[in-house]
């Protein structure tokens, strides 16, 4: 059973928490996590979908030269053909072209949404969890209130106040995502704060900011990353929902949900107008969900699955 190697006395590897803060096992933990992630076929598939999505968004003008929003009423509602592989919509525009450019719109929206969520939610969560007391209490009541509504409805309500259009879409969905981040980060901070090494650091007099940066932040990273991946998918879904209802991104900007909404009227004779944009939404969201799930399995040490 031996491997031929001699074992000499040696200290346990990894997991040693020095006063520097970050447990030295983190590096190898990430690498192990990455390996585990790459083994997960579904996660890899998700990653491919996302990659495809991003490539399409970035290289849109190359993939489809020309303006996807220019109407051409002579060619309206055509079935898929060689010239227009996914057919044309009610204004004669290439659906393929609109989907390609739509990926840009979706990507920008989801990046915007996630940024709003992170930039507002994470610091608030850190403060709430770390300092506790009155600040925490008030923030938590506000979060309760925001979470009292299902996410989409909250975004909808915000749109009702702010109005339609791409910017308001980003803000509304972003704000609806903030309480999720706050709760997530706060929960993490609370559990990390209990750890003995944090208590030790506080006892030694380490300034708060450094404690947060060195001890708490690395541990909060993982759930944030997972949530962000899932959040990108949710953002696409919500934005599409708002677009579908006509209160999201406004025409002529190509947005998948809006395309679905306007294509709805034609499903009896030209179902392709609604089918393909929806498929695009599905694949993009699926990609983020698969990846997010895979990340959670790979990086969460407590994951028993």
């Amino acid at each position, binding site marked *: 059973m031996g491997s031929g190697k001699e074992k000499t006395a040696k200290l346990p590897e990894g997991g040693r928490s020095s006063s520097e803060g970050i447990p030295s096992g983190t590096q190898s933990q990430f690498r192990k996590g990455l390996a585990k992630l790459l083994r997960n076929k579904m996660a890899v598939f998700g990653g491919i979908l996302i990659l495809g999505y991003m490539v399409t968004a970035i290289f849109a003008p190359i993939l489809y030269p020309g303006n996807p929003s220019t109407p051409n009423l002579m060619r309206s509602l055509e079935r898929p053909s060689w010239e227009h592989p996914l057919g044309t919509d009610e204004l004669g525009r290439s659906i393929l072209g609109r989907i390609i450019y739509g990926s840009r719109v979706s990507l920008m929206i989801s990046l915007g949404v996630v940024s709003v969520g992170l930039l507002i939610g994470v610091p608030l969560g850190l403060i709430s969890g770390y300092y506790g007391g009155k600040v925490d209490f008030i923030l938590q009541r506000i979060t309760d209130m925001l979470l009292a*509504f299902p996410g989409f409805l909250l975004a*909808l309500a915000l749109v009702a106040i702010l109005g339609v259009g791409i910017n308001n879409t980003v803000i509304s969905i972003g704000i609806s995502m903030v309480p999720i981040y706050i709760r997530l980060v706060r929960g993490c901070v609370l559990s990390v704060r209990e750890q003995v090494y944090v208590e030790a650091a506080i006892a030694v007099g380490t300034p708060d900011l450094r404690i947060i940066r060195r001890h708490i932040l690395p541990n909060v990273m993982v759930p944030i990353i997972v949530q962000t991946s899932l959040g990108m998918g949710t953002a696409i879904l919500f934005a599409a929902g708002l677009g579908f209802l006509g209160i999201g991104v406004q025409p002529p900007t190509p947005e998948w949900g809006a395309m*679905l909404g306007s294509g709805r009227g034609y499903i009896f004779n030209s179902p392709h107008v609604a089918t393909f944009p929806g498929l695009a939404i*599905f694949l993009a969201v699926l990609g983020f969900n698969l990846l997010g799930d895979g990340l959670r399995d790979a990086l969460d040490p407590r994951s028993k699955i």
Partner: protein
Amino acid sequence: MLQYTIRRLISTIPVLIGISLLLFVMLRALPGDPALVLAGQMASPEDIELIRVQLGLNQPIHIQYAKFISRLAVLDLGRSARTQNPVLEEIWARLPNTFLLATTAITLACLIGIPAGIIAAVRPYTKIDYLVTSFSLFGISMPVFWLGLMLVVVFSVTLQILPAGGIGTWKHVVLPTVTLASFVVAFIARMTRSSMLEVLSQDYITTARSKGLMEKVVIIKHALRNALIPIITVVGLQFGSLLGGAVLTETVFAWPGMGRLIVDSILARDYPMIQGAILIFGLLYILVNLIVDLIYAWVDPRIHYD
């Protein structure tokens, strides 16, 4: 248990106050004269003046708020700017429809999702587990409105066996329910699976097996009972969500429910209706959460001894 109930009821008060504040502020945050906004395009000058008095717009802000609260308390939500009918009446007409949809969808979702999750957890990493997991991931990624439209294409347009929208017979209920349930089934199946897996790895399951109990008993009497607790919470929250999230499904199937009402109101800038609908939704959601918490406390002995 009674103590817990009372405490929970009390804790909903801040949230209720918060929502009322939100609505109050919301109205005044809009550009323009709130009375005009509430009255809508079609109101006469007398109506506008009436609303102005009702809101107490000439009076200090705390009196305005007091008036607002007192009207809310008797559920006087004003009149719809669009139809001029009382808001409450419009809501009342539609709420049962949404309720019907939400209830059937949740029931369907539980009937399929929970057993699927259990089976997947009991046989992890086998084909059936991968099947359940994949389907679940697909289900939560699927845009509800797209699924609805696709189902209409298949069943209404092509096969012509089910209606594309509206309400009336049991046939009208099928497609919207399936559409609405799709996300929930997936979610519940996943939650059940992970909850069961978590429970099955606990020490007391090993203890149960060491006593010689049949595996069926271990799974149902020991594991499932524990696993169901977080699932109850999830189901409850999903139900609450469905009451509100049915917006998209109702739009696709022209289902006359609360969701449609909200969207139409937003598009028509019918602020009294928007306010009223948000309030009612908030109340319902809080109520559902409360009930879920109480069930949770009743089922889990660790809590009501707090």
